[in-house]
């Protein structure tokens, strides 16, 4: 509890990754694909759909999966809840680092509940989005 993991290596946000993600979530707005449209709306490059930030949360969360002291069985993990608080959209060309904090661990009815907070910022130090991820690790029963 309260454990803070080291910052992730920078994640470089690519235009094609944003387009691929937009396709996968039926995000039809041209601001996710068309550079001219994104610039006309005041962005430096194409912007990511809101939940794209989950990629950063998962990248940081991998530290938990890899942490042997946690011993988490990934196939038993079910997503309990998710919150994003945005300072601004994620833009292609961003280099993002994520610092993960374990906010809460509890156990109820044979299942484990885990809340992590992920502070995502650019390598230059600009805050971009804060993410809270709630996971349920289902018991063997």
């Amino acid at each position, binding site marked *: 509890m309260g454990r803070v993991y080291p910052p992730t290596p920078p994640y470089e946000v690519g235009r094609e990754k944003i387009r691929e993600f937009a396709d996968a979530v*039926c995000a039809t707005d041209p601001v996710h694909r068309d550079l001219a449209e994104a610039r006309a709306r005041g962005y430096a490059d194409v912007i990511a759909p809101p*939940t794209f930030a989950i*990629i950063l949360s*998962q990248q940081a969360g991998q530290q938990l999966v890899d942490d042997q002291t946690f011993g988490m069985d990934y196939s038993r993990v079910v*997503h*309990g809840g998710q*919150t994003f608080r945005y300072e601004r959209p994620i833009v292609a060309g961003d280099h993002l680092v994520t610092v993960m904090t374990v906010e809460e661990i509890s156990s109820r009815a044979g299942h484990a509940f885990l809340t992590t907070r992920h502070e995502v910022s650019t390598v230059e130090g600009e805050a971009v989005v804060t993410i809270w991820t709630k996971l349920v690790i289902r018991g063997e029963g």
Partner: protein
Amino acid sequence: MQVGTEFPAQTFQVTRADLVRYAGASGDFNPIHWSDRVATSVGLPGVIAHGMLTMALAGQAVACWIGGTAAIVEYSTRFANPVVVPDDDKGAEIVINGVVKKQLDDGTTQIDITATCRGDKILGAARALVRAR
């Protein structure tokens, strides 16, 4: 946006192919989203959709409702019931509804979202805070 305004429902059809596409795009390769064998071995009825895919589709509905005139500043949900996606061409149908709940003191507007599949509520306490641009 007037408090009480109900937005038109948005419907999304989610098939196994969509789950594979989302897994690849997001990097979430948890086998409960593509393997019936693993899904049933951990007590699920079968392969289920990524909660984040449902959340993304609901977010897409919000983006459609508010257009380019507002920005989502906060977005949160619980995952109430899993969306079981059968291995056929039809998959599962997800219906998203939304209502303007209230105007907050900080100038944002709260939109409450409901999402159902086969009549079951799949998102709990889903809401987006949006700000006019």
